[in-house]
């Protein structure tokens, strides 16, 4: 079975690099992006099974990114990452086609579980 390809997007670079490394240690092919714009570029450059997307980011926010991703790659599954109190944003994101959401700070095992479910759906 081919490795799961995941794009992890968050404006905290330290978080992105750490999560990417941890996912890699578990056999998941993870790539990081620290802005919405970078995420869109990465998606154009290579193929991903799932995108994990922070809702609130400076510049191009998570909701804008999901909107564009769903237009260009309707089959690409998106999992939202939200901080506490961003319930409304999550609801909007789910309506825009997000597969599910996780609240920060994320438990890695939970993330992997959702990633697997999203990939299976795809």
């Amino acid at each position, binding site marked *: 079975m081919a490795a799961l390809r995941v794009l992890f997007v968050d404006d*905290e670079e*330290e*978080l992105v690099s*750490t*999560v990417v*490394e*941890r996912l890699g*240690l*578990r056999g998941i092919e993870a790539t990081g992006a620290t802005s919405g714009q970078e995420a869109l570029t990465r998606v154009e450059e290579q193929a991903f099974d799932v995108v994990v997307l922070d809702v609130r980011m400076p510049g191009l926010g998570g909701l804008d990114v999901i909107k564009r991703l769903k237009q260009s790659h309707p089959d690409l599954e998106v999992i939202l990452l939200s*901080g*506490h*109190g961003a319930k409304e944003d999550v609801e909007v994101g789910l309506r825009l086609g997000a597969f599910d959401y996780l609240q*920060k*700070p*994320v438990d*890695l095992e939970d993330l992997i579980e959702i990633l697997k479910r999203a990939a299976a759906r795809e």
Partner: protein
Amino acid sequence: MPRPLETPAPRAADSEAARPYLSGRSYGRLRRTVVLATAAVSILPLVIISFLYHDQYERSLRAETIDGLARQVTNSKRTLEFFLTERRSALSFIVRDHSFAELCDLEALPRIMRSMNEAFAPGSFADLGLVDAGGRQLCYSGPYDLKGRDYHDQDWFYRVTRRGVFISDVFLGYRNNPHFAIATRHERDRSGYYILRATINADVLAEQLLTGGLAPHDDVFVVNRDGVLQAPSRRYGAVLRTVPLKIPYATAEVQVLELEDERHQPIVLGIAQIADSPFILVSIRPQVRLKSGGLSLPRLLAFLLLSIAVILGVILWGSRQFVSNLRAENLRRAELMHKVEYSNKLATVGRLAAGVAHEINNPLTIINEKAGLLKDLVNLEAEFPRRDKVLGIVDSVLGSVARCRKVTHRLLGFAKHMDVQSETIAVEELLREVVGFLGKEAEYRNVTITVEAEPGVPNVESDRGQLQQVFLNILNNAEAAVKDGGRIDIRVHAADERRVAVSITDDGVGISADNLERIFEPFFTTQEGAGTGLGLSITYGIVQKLGGDITVESEIGKGTCFTVLLPIRRKG
């Protein structure tokens, strides 16, 4: 230690601005001032005016009495003098118009007397007689047999021979009936003189006195210089009695004097000498009349007391209404002010908490992931030196991160719920959140706080922020009331089909029955100066607003139990 009855949070609101509303004594002082000032400006003028009026009234009454008596005496004097002058003139005319021989004619004298009585009034003259210079009555016309009587040794005869005209005192005489005589002497040519003498019954004199009428308490009479009654008196009886009153010296001019009578009663006495007669006219009016009529002093005092009672009643009632309305209005304003201030403070705290929590959350996530990575790396290495030790450290870091995460979640939850108006709330969960805020303080003091919920207790539809405030207030008070090592038990259960009950029981110092009655009153506190006394008042207000109810039971030394009843569904 006395139990504080408010939450620490609103203590900052215990500002100087709130102070004037706090003291019940200041309202008492205000009421006393209002009552005194109003009473002074309404009662004092009333009293002054009443006494001035009474004084003026007495003066007028006295003046009227004195003037009235003077008028009465003057009129009576004029009447009597006219009466006597008329009769004296009539005698003078007769004696000049008739010769001695004519007057001696036995038929002439009765005819003359008839004419006189017809001219004046029937009975005006009792009899008429002609007396010679020796005092013998030569002719006589009248009802008595007095012809030939000798008067030479009588006083009137002596005086008329000396003066020419004379009016006598009233005396009994030969006829033994009170009367007085008017006599006039007439000179005969070279043969001496003779006297025409008429007598008038004393009761005719009394009739003259009473022609002007007499008030019931008044008396008018005539005395001679010896104080012997010449006309009957209401006070002193029949003619010829001696008046026991010392009669002042009388002159032709009318005098009015304020004296005491023989029984030392105050009287007003009018007196005047009747001209060319021995008669002294006296009129008496009792002084007591001055005080009994119109606005007497007892009546005035009764009127004043009644008026003052009515005025005071109105003032007391009005001031009570005024002060209680003012107090209610001030309390309402102060309460509103404090509520706004308290809400603002909570909102500010909420925003601050949200900011802090958000900023801490991101580095926490990184720490969490880094620690996770470290753990992964250690686990992936088959032979990692001191593996267990490192994994223990990593787990400890992860555990601390989890604790921090709980705190930030709670802070964010508190802030998030500040503005929520109505939502479905799991009461037990909300209570655990609130207890979480108090956790550390309770831990330091070794206070045990338990939360227990009856299975199947329904959620309530309510305002989360307001409920947090309610339970925070009650728990803060409970925590302050218990000693170190004390206990606070929170129990959630269904009160009935429509309400959920939350009982918060502590084993603290308890509240006295007196304080218990006032515990929800605004500004009531057992710690003077320590707080506003608004905490439980606000709590009560919020619970009422949420459609619930709050009750409290307490026993000194055993503890206190607050029960908050919350409707499952909010009305409206």
